[in-house]
């Protein structure tokens, strides 16, 4: 099962999908595109990978285990 963790004021919003469920994959892909349009940054791990191995993700990957959505950085 894949999980999307979208950082927000609630802590984060969690979306899940299973690669075999076409409807869930389509909904997750739509959520991915929505976040990309908001210029958020995605980092993803594959099954079995630790979070410190997360890499930048440019397009939705239904085989990802976890996709983290974060915001771009600015100098303070």
């Amino acid at each position, binding site marked *: 099962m894949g999980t999307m963790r979208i950082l927000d004021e609630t802590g984060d919003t969690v*979306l899940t999908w299973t690669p075999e469920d076409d409807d869930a994959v389509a*909904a997750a892909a739509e959520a991915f595109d929505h976040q990309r349009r908001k210029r958020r940054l995605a980092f993803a791990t594959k099954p079995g990978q630790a979070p410190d191995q997360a890499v930048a993700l440019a397009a939705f990957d239904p085989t990802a285990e976890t996709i983290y959505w974060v915001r771009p*950085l600015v100098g303070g």
Partner: protein
Amino acid sequence: MPAYVVVEDLGGGRQLVEVTEGDLRGQTVVLTSTPSSRLRSLEALASDPLGVDAGFWDRIGPNWRGPDGRGPRPPRDPRVAGRRARSLLRSVLDERQRADYDLTGHFDVPTPYGVVRLGTLYHLGFTRSDGRRFRCCVVPRGMHGLPIDDIWVNLTLVLRADPDQFFAVANWHDVDPVHGGRPVRLGREQQRRSRR
């Protein structure tokens, strides 16, 4: 005692419920546990709002609409958001980082350029690979409203996977003793030098 009302029977032993008491009041969640364990599940949710480890519930998708036409609602209590963010942060830190954060409120993130210390907003420590120390300020864009631990998750993930982005936008303060130990904004110093 946590309580809920059943909004919709989703089939397959899953029920959509709205929590009516406690920290999670107002949240709409899917319960997948057996009826006899649901109250215990709701109690567990208060201490583990993500419920990922428990595996008995999941958030519903962004397209779901209830009978009243409303979508899923986020937690209203910032304490709940803070706990969720803390849980997420702990899940992305390694063992040593977790221990450091629990003990000191700070943790280190190694990068190809040196080590960044997170834990004090607007005043991040950076020890360059040659040992020279700096303070820097980098934040997520539009961070207001985010729980503080979400900010550390944000910075940690970018530092690990795309450190160049972090250093490209960072504002720097030199804490080298040549400046009397006081932070000096490098940009201002360079301006002074250019006027000489």
